[in-house]
């Protein structure tokens, strides 16, 4: 019992650690509150713009291009709410810039204002996010998030988790799809094709029959032996 409880606690802890939820195409985030809100249902999503996850400019067919083109980190040099941002700038920003030479990073100090990330994407999207009182670790995750998403997807409701330009591989349905070729040459009215569909016994029924037979055989055996 003790073990089970501790493992549950461990699980909850790891669950709460996950602050950002990624979907295919680097789309949605779940970080308005640090912890997932359970048991709340709204129809807010109905008012969002509906879209499919798309790769801009066939990204990946020719070659992969990081869609984040520039990021501006705005912060205050002495306000407490920017502390995490300052830590991030001191410790992790150079690594980020080295690893992503295709992203232009601007750092903009401004007095007594909330720290903010502004990301700009190749498709013209501008993603603005307030980082008030964020820790360095949270900022690392957010930078990873804005680096991997293809555009601002915050105000977008994904209609499906996938998209294809070719919805049907076998072609559109026609009245003749999967039709038995025998029917083409049949003369109607036709007795064979016209009769009601005869269903074979299902697997369950077959099993039941076998079981019944077995039971009866056993009963007969018992009778004969006694």
């Amino acid at each position, binding site marked *: *019992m*003790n073990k089970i*409880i*501790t493992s549950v*606690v461990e699980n*909850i*802890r790891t669950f*709460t650690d996950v602050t950002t939820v990624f979907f295919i195409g680097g789309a949605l985030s779940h970080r308005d509150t*640090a*912890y*997932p*809100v*359970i*048991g*709340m249902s709204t129809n807010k999503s109905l008012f969002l713009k509906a879209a499919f996850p798309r790769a*801009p*400019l*066939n990204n990946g*067919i*020719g*070659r992969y*291009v*990081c869609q984040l*083109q*520039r990021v*501006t980190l705005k912060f205050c040099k002495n306000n407490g709410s920017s502390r995490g941002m300052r830590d991030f700038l001191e410790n992790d920003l150079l690594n980020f810039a080295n690893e992503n*030479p*295709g*992203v*232009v990073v*601007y750092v*903009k100090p401004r007095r007594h204002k909330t720290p903010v990330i502004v990301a*700009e994407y*190749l*498709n*013209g999207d501008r993603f603005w996010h307030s980082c008030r009182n964020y820790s360095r670790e949270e900022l690392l995750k957010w930078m990873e998030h804005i680096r991997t998403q293809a555009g601002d997807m915050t105000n977008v409701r994904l209609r499906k988790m996938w998209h294809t*330009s*070719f919805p049907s591989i076998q072609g559109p349905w*026609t*009245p*003749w799809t999967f039709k038995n070729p025998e029917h*083409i040459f049949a003369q109607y009215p036709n007795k064979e094709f016209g009769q009601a569909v005869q269903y074979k016994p299902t697997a369950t029924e077959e099993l039941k029959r076998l079981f019944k037979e077995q039971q009866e055989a056993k009963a007969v055996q018992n009778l004969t032996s006694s």
Partner: protein
Amino acid sequence: MTTLHSCAKMISQLHRLIPITCSGQRGFKRWVAPVKKVMAVRQKKMGPQPVPIRNTFLEWNFDAEIFAFNKRLSEQFDSELLVQALTHRSYVIQEEQKQRDVGITEPKLDIEDNREMIEEGAELTSRIVVSYLGKCLPLAPEECIFALHDHLLSQKTLAHVSSHIGTKDIILVAGNIADEGILADTFLALVSALTRSVDVIHAGAFVRDFLIATLAEKDLIEIWTPSNPLENLNEILRKDNRQLAEPRLISQTGINSLIPVYRVAVYSNKEFLGVGCGETIDVAKEVAATDALLRIFNLNNYQNLKYDLKVDISKDNMENLPLTKWCTENVQKVLQLKT
């Protein structure tokens, strides 16, 4: 005792957890709608506002942007050539005017514009696209290749590609706003700059990855379909010494309804060529003939268009036959000559 012990242990771990809270809000915010209405009225009164221009912001470093542009596309542009390719003529004129306004009668600027590059790039891009498509679709007729070429080199497609590789903000143009034409021209200038920086084969890969790859999202039939398909099909069959196409109604449904469907297939000497549906028999015949042609030209499957070939425009010439000369024998001859 053991249960007590475990409880104590759990409580000691629980305080580290942060409880999941769910705070609802009570009451209606009755001020929201009126405020939004007033704001909307004011916005309408103000009229359309100018779009903020990114390169006039305080946080803007042109050199860093040029460096990142190169790295982002994993390209090897020479940075001077790249800047030249991004400099529009109107920008040079604007700069000269600025000097004149200050009082310099003969303004001297060491910036070059991209007029020459645009011309060179247009020719190069055109040749690259044609020879790439010729290599990809050797069975397609010349008309199809030219139609695809015209689609790819249309201003709209070029501008779309150009803005999506990130030229929009870094183009040097008077007034800082690049319209569709300038965006398209800049892409062509970039191809020229890349040819000068590395070579044509490398520029070919650039065109393939960014321009030709946009065909992956397109239905090729929407861009080009043979006109008079039945006549063309018969023409080709005649040249191949095969029996003429024989359209046969293979099925029909809903004939007495508002939406009848006929399915017609074309055969040559009982050999299946293609199939199509339509609301009248004539339409279905045309569709079936088109399908047969597309099958012959190997255009019926979008997977036939590859995006990993390399082209060298000095060697790979497009030798696709026009529809009037197209027959299997001629095509085989051309293909043998190529290999």
